[in-house]
């Protein structure tokens, strides 16, 4: 397991990521997917997909959780409110949860969140729960590709902040991180 990054490493990473986003003009219209991944399966599967050099869309942002049972409806809504185009909740195979039933609870919460998305006026298809094992690197790549395709068909989320707002925010965050890095090196 990867060790905890120091504050310095985090700032450096944030500054580098911010610069890369701006310089490579990566805020184009490709859908942004947030993936809540269970540490015991989907996160390991994503790691494996990387080790296997599998190709899958790079517009997925992976958020590691100790179990998908940690996912709450408000986490999912918070993501959509901030303008992501789609959310994946990826947990262990049913019956294979490290905490016995976290993935089953997550599925019910995902259903509840889908119902709320419908009431809000967002397409519930923007949210999906998947089950896979840690050995399924190829399946992880397939899930991300499938979701990315689905979101491309649905179009960008109507709640997506406009490009100028995003760029301004990234600039602010990058400057903050760069200032922090400069402060640390002095």
């Amino acid at each position, binding site marked *: 397991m990867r060790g905890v990054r120091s504050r310095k490493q985090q700032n450096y990473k944030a500054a580098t990521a911010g610069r890369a986003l701006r310089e490579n003009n990566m805020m184009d219209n490709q859908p942004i997917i947030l993936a809540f991944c269970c540490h015991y399966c989907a996160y390991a599967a994503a790691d494996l997909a990387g080790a296997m050099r599998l190709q899958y869309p790079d517009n997925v942002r992976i958020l590691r959780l100790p179990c998908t049972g940690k996912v*709450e*409806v*408000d986490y999912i*809504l*918070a993501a*959509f*409110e901030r303008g992501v185009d789609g959310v994946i909740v990826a947990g262990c195979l049913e019956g294979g949860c490290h905490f016995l039933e976290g993935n089953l609870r997550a599925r019910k919460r995902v259903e509840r969140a889908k119902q*709320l998305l419908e*009431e*809000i*006026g*967002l397409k519930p298809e923007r949210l999906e729960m998947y089950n896979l094992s840690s050995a399924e690197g190829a399946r992880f790549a397939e899930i991300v590709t499938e979701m990315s395709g689905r979101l491309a068909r649905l179009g960008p989320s*109507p*709640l997506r902040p406009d490009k100028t707002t995003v760029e301004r925010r990234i600039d602010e965050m990058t400057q903050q991180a760069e200032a922090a890095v400069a402060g640390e090196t002095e």
Partner: protein
Amino acid sequence: MIVADRKNVREIRDMIKGHKRVLLVGCGTCVTVCLAGGEREVGILGSALRMALKLDGHGGVVVDECTIERQCEDAFIDILAPRVAEYDAVCSLGCGAGVQALAERFPGTAVYPGLNTQFIGILESQGVWTEKCAGCGNCRLGEFAGICPITRCAKRLFNGPCGGSRDGRCEVDPELDCAWQLIYDRAKALGILDQFASIAEVHDWSTGPDGGPRRVVREDQCIAGLGPNA
């Protein structure tokens, strides 16, 4: 406790969309326990409403959140007063009593309900609440082995069961227990079946909800000299 459930997001959105600043107010008592209007639900509804308003072309409406310990008592509403002054509408996630307590306390602010108040009930199993008390004002549970025929019998029979009782279930809904079967079984276990040999008296409904709001007055607790209207 009082059991409630959330109104549809669209319904709440349409109520508040004419306002500029709306405060969602949760309640830390009954509705927190029945997972309808506590701090978490206020957060979820706040998020949902901001998105729904934006999608409906009312993105300018500010929706903020807060939760107080108890909405049905003025002493607890006190801490809310300075915040409410900053908003032109409040959406209460309390029960009907909470909504009205806020409306009374803030005469210049629009107050809307975020929940549908359902009944007085208990947690039957995780995520399932059932009605247990109709608040009739004249409790006769002692006569019916602790099971309320008013709330739990579909026909409110005082001398049941009726012919619709089948294998312990009610004809109205096969999922529903026949209240009179429950009363009989419990009375039998308690050895008090002989109590049911006589006809139960007609219920005095004068204490019921018809005829305006009821009130309970404890003179000894009222401020001396001012009476119940203090």
